[in-house]
Structure formats: structure tokens, C-alpha cells
């Protein structure tokens, strides 16, 4: 039985340890010595046996600390055990256990040090000794000393990248403290948690507690702001967590940058005390898509590690991923890694689009840095509303056109509660307010219809063409229709179908819709045609204009033939 116990322990011990008996000390690593002397009852019996115990720890990780283990040989009497943690000067900083423990052939005794001292504060990074003392009923005393390196592990920056070029884009916000100002999420450090003015350390708060992970920035129109001491808002550049945008199906790559200092329990700044001599140390992650893996086997303060995660969704959608980051160590040259107890959890919002964003030729400015967060989020909302699997550009177009028009299901209004500007709505006869000058003011539409609640066809066509293009639908263009006599239509935001759109006349001087195939199929978020078989009579039956065959659309929209031509995709601000 003794031999079996010794072998069990020898197979799993990974830390350095020392044991002593009656003043003599034997040092070893990984394999404890066989119990010296003869059988039970002899004076030199090693009844206290080492078991796997943490070698490197960071108590400031979530559930971080050191696991201490040992076993005691079977005995009819209880042992008196004391487990303490001593600093490099031999001073006891924590007592983990003091009391009686039974001996057993199968039981491994465990104690956990959460890294706090008897004074209640976190112990400082550095070298420690965990000492287990056991005394049997005869007063024989045995001691195990485990080496323990307490370090401060953490990162300040996560930069999202793609394993294939042109598979990842920054996202864009359009407001800043009430003004229209475009901001692209940083390409370096979409996730950022570091010291700002007045902070002592880039990993800890000034009271020594770990700086928490920033939550996902869920506002869709305005980036994270802070207020400057001199007044006014400035972009938050120390602590934020912006949404990411990847091509559907892409393999995400994150590069993390490690912090370099921490706050000691006397309030001063200290080093993180890693790497640890003789040990490799690495970071790993896991989320719902599996492991985040790295080839790096050593990390260092201010250094970086690059990890590859499981592929993002193969559809255009929004997914929040929660990554549990942890650390592993091994003796240099060994093959088996041991986990540093504890983890650090980050959350990441990932939007996926099917193709790269497309923009008007010659557009310059931050607004062209990537898809706008508000547009990405609208698409996600509409995808859920219409229960669409967004695996094609046609599905993206369907979600956007239907969602933009709204007024179905839980979408009680049109986008931003706009209304077609016919008199029955109180409108102004169909004037353009957002999109008639070659540059469509999409940001103002998305900002609670800031240029007014009334829209016409050009407003709808320009904004939808730009929105679809930034969502990766290629070749989207305006399609200009000449004058026409209408059949029954249901204008965006209106209550019902009408056969008298202007109060005394029912026609268009022109109409703007969109197409991505030079007019073979067309989409129109400005109105619904009537699909009940009698398009010249009321009531009407809703028919969204999603990629309609042109001839079908033309026949349902108006009487006679409509002249057409294609226009360019507009610029956007």
C-alpha cells in the first residue's frame, strides 16, 4: 500500500519542493523521495508526502491563488498539521491551516491560498515558500517546503486581427458628445485596459485590486468618451472594449500585450515578477468556439502573444463571445503544461459581414474606415426579427429592406420612425432631406431623423444603398425611374395604402430605388406595392420590394412603361 501511494504521488507532483525530517532536508522536484526508514513505528518514517502543488500563481486572477496538497500515511491517530506561507525573509505571511488531519492511503489533503496576507491585503509578487508541518501522535515532526512564485499576470491590450488579409475591419461611430464626428475603432487595441493619468499601474487599481475588464461598448452611435479636465468630451483611450467586425467564417486572431507593473500592498508600483527562472509560461484562452491557441511558450511584461480562436459565424450576424484567459507553466524543456489557478474573462462583440465594405469612389474620411456600428446592429436586429439565416447577399438585402420599412411584427415603425412625406402624413410633397446632393447624410437619419421625420424615395434609396454596401453587398447602385402614374402604394411609415398620394394626383415625377445588377432585380424600402392581384384598388396587400424582378415591380408600381437609368453609389456622411 505504501508503494502504491508513493507512485501515485510521484506521477503527479510537478512543483519544486523540499522535505525535512528531524532537521535534515532533501530537495527535489517532481518526485518525492520514498519514505525513509522502515515501516510504521520507526523514528525515521516519512509520513508526510508531497502532492501536486501550485508552483506559479497570481491571486489577482479570478479564483486565483495557490493549491497546496500533501498526504499523510495511514495512522490510527490524527496528525497535527500546520500549513503556512512564508516570504523570502522567512516571515509567515499567511496561515492556511492549523489543526488535526487524519492519515489515509487515498486522501490527499488540500488547502488553497487566495494570495492574501493575514493583514487582509494581496501579497506582493515575489518568491514564497509554502510550508507544511505535520506532527504525529508521538511528537515526530515532518516538514514539506514548496517553492511558490507569486506573479502578476495580465494584459492591457487586445488587438483583433485576421489570419487572412482583408478579413477584418474597424467599425465606425458617427457622434461625439452631440456633434456629428466620425470615429473609427482603433486598429491597435480594440480592447484596452491600461493606466490613465493618476493611475499607478497598468494592471491594478491604485488600491491594489485588479483592474476589471471593460465591458462591451454597446452604444451604437457614439464611442466611449471621457470628460477632459478642461471641459468637453474626449475619446476614451485607456479603457474600452469596442465591437469587432470580421468576414463571415473568418478565423479571428488576437494579439494581447502584457502589462508590466502592478500595485504592491504598500501602495507602491512593483514589477510583475515573471518570467520565472526555469519555467516556461504561456497564455491560453477558451470560449464557446473552442480553444484560443498560441505557439508562444514564453511571455514577458510588455511582450505580446498572438492567439488563434475558433472561426466566427459563417453568417452575417452578431455574436458575443466570452473568453476565459488562463496561464500555464512547465519546467523549461518539459512537455506537460500545468495551469496557473484562476482566469481572466473578457467579452467581445463580433459582427460578421459576408464581404468587404464597399464605398463610393473617392470617398475620404473616417466614415469610410469600416461598417458603422449602428448599421451593423440594425442588421442584427432585423435578422432576428425576420428569422433569417444571413448566408447570402440576397438575405442581407432582404433583412435590410424589410427592417428599414418596418411596420411588421415587433417593428412597429419604420427605421428611426421616418414617414413618407406625402400630405396624408403631414409631409411636404416628396422633397429630399437626406440624400439629394450626391452625399447622403446617413448619420443624421440614424440620429433620430435629425433632419426631420419626412423622407422621400431618394432619402430611402441613398441610405439603403450605402447601408447595404457597407455591409458587404457589392455593386449596389441607385436606380432612377422616370415619371409615372402610380398604382396603390404604401409609403414608408404611413398607415395604409393610398391611391391619392399627393392629394389630388397620384404619380411620381421620378422615383429612386436600388439595384445591384443594373436593374434586373430591384429593391425599394420607400414603399410597398400591392400584391393582391388588383393593384389599382384598395385595400392593398403588402409586398416588400426585395430583389424583385424588374418587370414585376414595374407592373405593380405604375401604369405603363417607366424609363430607367443607373446612378452611382452616393458618398456618405
Amino acid at each position, binding site marked *: 500500500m505504501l508503494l502504491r501511494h508513493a507512485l501515485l504521488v510521484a506521477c503527479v507532483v510537478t512543483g519544486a519542493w523540499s522535505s525535512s525530517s528531524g532537521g535534515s532536508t532533501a530537495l527535489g522536484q517532481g518526485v518525492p523521495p520514498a519514505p525513509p526508514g522502515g515501516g510504521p513505528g520507526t523514528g525515521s518514517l516519512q509520513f508526510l508526502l508531497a502532492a501536486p502543488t501550485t508552483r506559479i500563481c497570481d491571486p489577482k486572477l479570478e479564483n486565483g491563488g495557490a493549491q497546496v496538497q500533501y498526504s499523510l500515511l495511514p495512522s490510527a491517530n490524527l496528525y497535527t498539521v500546520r500549513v503556512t506561507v512564508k516570504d523570502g525573509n522567512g516571515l509567515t505571511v499567511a496561515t492556511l491551516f492549523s489543526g488535526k488531519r487524519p492519515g489515509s492511503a487515498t486522501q490527499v489533503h488540500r488547502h488553497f491560498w487566495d494570495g492574501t496576507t493575514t493583514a487582509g491585503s494581496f501579497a506582493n509578487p515575489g518568491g514564497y515558500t509554502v510550508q507544511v508541518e505535520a506532527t504525529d501522535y508521538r511528537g515526530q515532526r515532518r516538514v514539506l517546503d514548496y517553492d511558490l512564485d507569486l506573479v502578476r499576470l495580465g494584459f492591457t491590450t487586445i488587438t483583433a486581427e485576421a489570419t487572412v488579409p482583408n478579413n477584418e475591419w*474597424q467599425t465606425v461611430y458617427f457622434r461625439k458628445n452631440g456633434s*456629428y464626428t466620425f470615429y*473609427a475603432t*482603433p*486598429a*491597435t487595441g480594440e480592447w484596452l485596459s491600461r493606466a490613465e493619468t493618476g493611475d499607478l499601474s497598468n494592471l491594478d487599481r491604485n488600491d491594489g485590486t485588479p483592474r476589471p475588464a471593460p465591458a462591451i461598448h454597446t452604444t451604437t452611435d457614439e464611442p466611449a468618451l471621457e470628460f477632459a479636465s*478642461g471641459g*468637453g468630451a474626449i*475619446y476614451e483611450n485607456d479603457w474600452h472594449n469596442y465591437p469587432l467586425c470580421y468576414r463571415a467564417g473568418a478565423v479571428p486572431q488576437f494579439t494581447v500585450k502584457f502589462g508590466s507593473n502592478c500595485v504592491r500592498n504598500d501602495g507602491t508600483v512593483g514589477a510583475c515578477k515573471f518570467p520565472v527562472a526555469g519555467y516556461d509560461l504561456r497564455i491560453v484562452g477558451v470560449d464557446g468556439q473552442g480553444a484560443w491557441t498560441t505557439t508562444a511558450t514564453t511571455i514577458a511584461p510588455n511582450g505580446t502573444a498572438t492567439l488563434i480562436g475558433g472561426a466566427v459565424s459563417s453568417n452575417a450576424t452578431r455574436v458575443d463571445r466570452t473568453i476565459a484567459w488562463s496561464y500555464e507553466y512547465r519546467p523549461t524543456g518539459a512537455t506537460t503544461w500545468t495551469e496557473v489557478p484562476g482566469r481572466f474573462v473578457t467579452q467581445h462583440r463580433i459582427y460578421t459581414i459576408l464581404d468587404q465594405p464597399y464605398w463610393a469612389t473617392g470617398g*475620404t*474620411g*473616417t466614415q469610410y474606415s469600416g461598417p458603422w456600428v449602428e448599421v451593423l446592429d440594425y442588421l442584427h436586429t432585423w435578422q432576428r426579427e425576420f428569422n433569417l439565416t444571413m448566408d447570402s447577399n440576397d438575405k442581407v438585402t432582404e433583412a435590410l429592406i424589410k427592417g428599414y420599412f418596418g411596420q411588421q411584427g415587433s417593428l412597429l415603425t419604420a427605421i428611426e420612425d421616418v414617414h413618407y*412625406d406625402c*400630405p*396624408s*402624413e*403631414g*409631409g*411636404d*410633397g*416628396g*422633397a*429630399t*432631406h437626406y440624400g*439629394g*446632393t*450626391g*452625399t447622403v*447624410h446617413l448619420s443624421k437619419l440614424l440620429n433620430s431623423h*435629425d433632419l*426631420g*421625420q*419626412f423622407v*422621400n424615395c*431618394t432619402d430611402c434609396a441613398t441610405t439603403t444603398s450605402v447601408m447595404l454596401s457597407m455591409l458587404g453587398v457589392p455593386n449596389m*447602385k441607385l436606380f*432612377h425611374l422616370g415619371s409615372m402614374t402610380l398604382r396603390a402604394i404604401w409609403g414608408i411609415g404611413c398607415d395604409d395604402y393610398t391611391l391619392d398620394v*399627393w*392629394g*389630388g*394626383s397620384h*404619380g*411620381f*415625377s*421620378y422615383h429612386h430605388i436600388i439595384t445591384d*445588377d*443594373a*436593374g*434586373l432585380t430591384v429593391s425599394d424600402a420607400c414603399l410597398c406595392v400591392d400584391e393582391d392581384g388588383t393593384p389599382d384598388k384598395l385595400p392593398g396587400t403588402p409586398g416588400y420590394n426585395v*430583389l424583385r*424582378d*424588374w*418587370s414585376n415591380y414595374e407592373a405593380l408600381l405604375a401604369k405603363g412603361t417607366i*424609363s*430607367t*437609368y443607373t*446612378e*452611382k453609389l452616393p*458618398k456618405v*456622411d
Partner: protein
Amino acid sequence: MDRSKLFGSLGRVFALAALFAGLGASVLHAQSAPTPSDPTIEAARVRYLAAEWPSGERRPGFALEDLTFAGLVGAKVEYDASGVSRKFSDSAGVARVLVELAVADEVATAHATLLRHLGFVQSTKLLPTAASRGIRAGDLGYIGYGGRDGSKISWLAFVVGNLEFRVVDLDPDAVGAVDVRPIVESIAARALALPALPAGAPLPRPTIERFSAELQNVTAGESLALEVDAREPSGAAAAVDFVVGGWQQGQGYVERDEAGRWRFHATGAGKVEITLKALGRNGTTSTRTLTLEIAKS
């Protein structure tokens, strides 16, 4: 849907598309002329007899910032690709009126802007002139009537020489909606009272005396100071804005630091253009661009 099957049936569409290739909507900056051959504009030119429109004298711009109306509070003047605009709210903070302005070098360009406002109206009805309704709206103005009974002025676009205004009632049916007629007449009178520019004289614009960066290279995640000196024609400091963009992935933004200096914050590696826009009180802008190389951190 097999969309490829539709190609054979729409030859007419292709023919028309080819006919009008390149005639799409063009960018209309405050001082640039719209594409003269835009079919929508041309149609409006014919319908509204634009060739017969009166050509007023050129003015040296117009300061929306100076406008005040009883009972309304003006917001900050906004500059965008279309020109400048300013919103006015009532005492409860409800936005009531939007005033849009495009300042052109030439009268013809202001007329083209007015035509654009008229051309991009979907109604088949011809809009009435302001004069026909007894409203003094500069050289020429047109009214978009609105409200559920069609009796309220929803917007009124007019020109005073090289200045084109559109005054929009943001919700003419709302309780507390304002009457835009006195607002239009006030603006028109103020514009007409401005001294005319001599023939051939350039439109006064803000000037950019200095725009440079302390370094030509910066690392992503870092920032550098910008030297900025923009002046109004009067010599006073001009308001400025910045456009960051370029050919590649270079990214960043510009903000004042605590000492009040402009700084460019680099957030993505690559070549980047930073364009300084000097925003004249008279509705004009001037720009200058510098290029920086942002290194990967």
C-alpha cells in the same frame, strides 16, 4: 430566384443605363457646381423655366451664426458636404426649424442648388413661388407646402445672388410649430442687405496660415502635435474641423489636448491624410491636407 435568367428581358434597361452612364448624382459642396447634365436637374430646369430666373448680385457669404429669431434658440452651425446648416429649437428644446445654406462662387451655381431642391421632389405638382404667395424671399423662392391639409409651409428654398437657402419646418403639423414666413423674410432681408461683391472679386474665404505636424512619422497608439493656424477673412481665428482618411489603413483622430493644442492620435498603421477644414463664419470653407506615415506599434 435565379437572377441570371432575367438578363434577356431587360435590354431596354441596359440601353437607358448606358445612355445615362456617368450621369449620376454628383457631390455638391458649398462652393462647387452640380453636374450640369444631371437629368433630374435638367428636367427641373425646364419645368421651372430656370433660364428666366433673375440673377441677383453676389454676396460675401452669410453667417448663420448671427441669426436670431424670437422664441427660438439656435444650435451650433453644422458643416457638411452640402453646405452649412443650423437648427433652431423652442424654449422646451424641441427642434422646430432647420436653416440650410449653400454659398456658391457664382449665381448660376446657387440656381443649380435651388434646382436640385426642386428637382428632387417626387410630387408631380409644380411648386408655387414665394412671390406668388406674398412672401419676400430674395431673388426667387419656391414653397413646399405640407401638413395634413397641405396648407402649411413645410419648406421654402430661395436664392439671394450666390446664396441658396432652404428653411425647413421640421414638423408643420405639430403643436407649437412655428410660422417660417417671417423667418424666411428675415433671412432674405439680411442677405440682401449685405454688400455686393464687385464683379470678378473672389468670394472671401478663411485662410490656412499654417498646418503641419511636429513629426512626419508616428506609431499607432501614440499621438503628435499639429500646428494649426486658420484665419477668417477678418483676421480672427477661424473654427476648424479635421477629416482623417487616406489611401490605406492609416487611422486616427484629432483632438485638443489639455493645453489646448491639437493632437493627432494614431490608431491604425498605414499612410494617412489629415485634412484641415477652416470653417468660415460666412459659410465658406478652405482645406489643406498633410500626409503622415503611421507605423505599427
